[in-house]
């Protein structure tokens, strides 16, 4: 279980305080306008921003003392998920070992995870030559291979065109359910949340409010 108990952050004059409880295998979607603090929430879970108070726990253990790279978390960003001077295999391999010295077995697992996102044979392709949708799929493959139980999705579908977006959401939902991940999806698009089968929360005035289905239909 992922628990946020009044996790507070100060950004200049803005104050946020997040409270959220979610099961280890549930998809939660955080909806809100830009500037409402959606990305700040992900940054504080991932450890990019220090919390000024409250408690953040995963399976009963506090995460707040851990640096970003030691947390059981992996993030799929909206863009710039790949290093464009490296190839697909290297980009995924960095998620396995940050010095890129992978064993033969590990390279095989890179190929396997590429099959999972329907990109078999892409391992030697340069990241610079991929389409936007392919880039996000490579990044998703890396997230899966890192085997971290918490997956943070930071508007990962927003930069994609309409048809690619549906395919990507479908693929993401499938692999997330298969790998039984705890997912926090941040988006400004209520459609994304619906398609991901997510429990929805509205972020307003610095706090999270669960949204019932009825309420959601009213706002739509």
């Amino acid at each position, binding site marked *: 279980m992922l628990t946020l108990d009044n996790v507070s952050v100060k950004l200049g004059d803005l104050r946020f305080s997040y409270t959220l409880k979610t099961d280890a295998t549930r998809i939660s979607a955080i909806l809100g306008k830009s500037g409402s603090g959606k990305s700040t929430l992900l*940054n504080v879970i991932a450890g*990019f921003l220090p919390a000024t108070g409250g408690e953040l726990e995963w399976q009963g253990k506090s995460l707040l003392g851990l640096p970003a790279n030691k947390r059981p978390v992996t*993030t799929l*960003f909206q863009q710039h998920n790949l*290093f464009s*001077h*490296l190839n697909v295999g290297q980009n995924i391999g960095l998620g396995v070992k*940050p*010095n890129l010295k992978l064993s033969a077995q590990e390279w095989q697992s890179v190929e396997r995870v590429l099959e999972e996102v329907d990109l078999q044979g892409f391992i030697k392709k340069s990241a610079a030559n991929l389409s936007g949708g392919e880039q996000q799929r490579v990044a998703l493959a890396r997230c899966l291979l890192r085997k971290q139980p918490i997956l943070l999705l930071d508007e990962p579908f927003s930069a994609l065109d309409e048809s690619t977006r549906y395919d990507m959401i479908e693929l993401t939902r499938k692999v997330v359910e298969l790998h039984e991940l705890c997912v926090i999806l941040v988006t400004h698009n209520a459609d994304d949340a619906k398609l991901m089968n997510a429990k929805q929360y509205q972020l307003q005035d610095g706090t999270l409010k669960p949204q019932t289905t009825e309420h959601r239909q009213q706002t739509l």
Partner: protein
Amino acid sequence: MSGLKAQINSALNHWWLPGLLALVVLALITGLPLTALILTTSEINLSGVFQNTYFNRVIFFSFYQALLSAVLSVGLAIPLAQALSREQVFPGRKWLIYLFSLSLVIPTIVAIFGIVAVYGRTGWLNNFTAWFGIDPFSIYGLSGILLAHVFFNMPLATRVLLQSLDNIPDTQWRLSTQLRLNGFSQFRFIEWPAMRTQLVGVFMLIFTLCFTSFTIVLTLGGGPRATTIEVAIYQALRFDFDLSSAVSLALVQMAFCTLLLLLSAFFKHNAPLGFSITPAATVFRPVNKKRWVSFSIIILAALFVVLPFMGLLISAVNPSTVAVLIHTNTIQATINTFIIAVVTACISVAMGIALLISSRHIRIRLAYHKLGQWIQHAGNIILVMPPVVLGTGLFLLLRDFADVFSIALLLAILINSLMALPFVLRILDGPIIQATEHHDKLIQSLGISGWSRWRLLDWPLIRQPIGYAMGLSAALAAGDLSAIALFGSERALTLPLLLFQRIGSYRLHEAATTAGVLLMACLVLFVLMRAIAGGQLLRPIHADS
């Protein structure tokens, strides 16, 4: 992991370590000489500086010639930039603008030789005008200093202004045609506003460059009537051995340089550092009704810049060429020049990278943008403490411990490294930031750090700019006269010093060949360092992009 690698790895894991080391080195190289300068002042009467007529004249002349040089350079650059911007297509345009960037790597002393060959007493111009019975034009004194300063800085100003003209949006030109603006109105409402934003900045830059100008004033000036503070310090130290004058002038010079630096901080300019050529625009341009005016300006400017190079190339091969080439002095000077250049390039680029890696962490990951920039500005210390001032400090610091003339090469390397550092920082800053800018969170979450980060994420992206920075600092060090003029001797010759001596004793044949050798040395060093460090030999140069 080998021992060195492990050490670098642990150094890179501590983001503050490289920058701190570089700052400590900078503080030692400049702080100790400065302390030596200040401690010496207790023995002298500083207020005497402003009562001494010689000093007053030197200080006045420093400002006077810098002001005239900057006014002339910028003033001539305005019509030239306008002409080049109105004429986007003509044969040789690319090469002319390319030539305008060369002043960055051409050693000053080499260009001076070219200028003397064309405009000197027995040069082409005077030979030509003598036919018409016109009195010879003297290149020594204020006129020569101005000529050389304009030769170096007018092209620089032109490139800055041309850049702003080329950035004028297409729609403004279309609009000006529909409104039927005439040539002057185009200038007044479109071209002038575009240039004006850069004008003060580039004026300040050129003023500062000319104020601290050393080589040009040393060779073409001289005497109390045409001496700048920088040269007066050198003369006090090297010829009169008048320590108190040298120290007082050095402190005065530092005060003025600090003032100028603070002033220029207010005025931004986008002086280019590379050889990138603005592509011949395919944008719409109004018809240029006075093409003959534009072309006259361009041809005159081209002659002004090209003739000295031709003068140099033509005179470099002469009856004494072979004798000069195999002379032991030439060979020794060439070897020393290469040593200074290569070591300087390594030191200044290493210091630059060290400062930038720490400053990047502070700016991006810790988000203290200003603090990070200040750490980087420490690398520009030479702008406050110009070479001859730093040299004077080093002289005072070391005179009790060592024979400064026997460690001349080492001191030249120290001074040249600091001289190249501002260029290195400007070249590498953008690429090092870009290598991280959008990916910092990703890098953090994947835990890529230390040696792996350098090897996988930084080096592949900044290798090419590093090669360019190495090439440029090597060429700068190879062509520099200011540091070696203070400490050099027959025991520690470099090519610029040898050339200076040969010009000074009017052995012009020998000087011409020496200039050719120095020019070749700079070119070879530039290409070679770029090739080795940047991993490329003969690819087109694109430093700005």
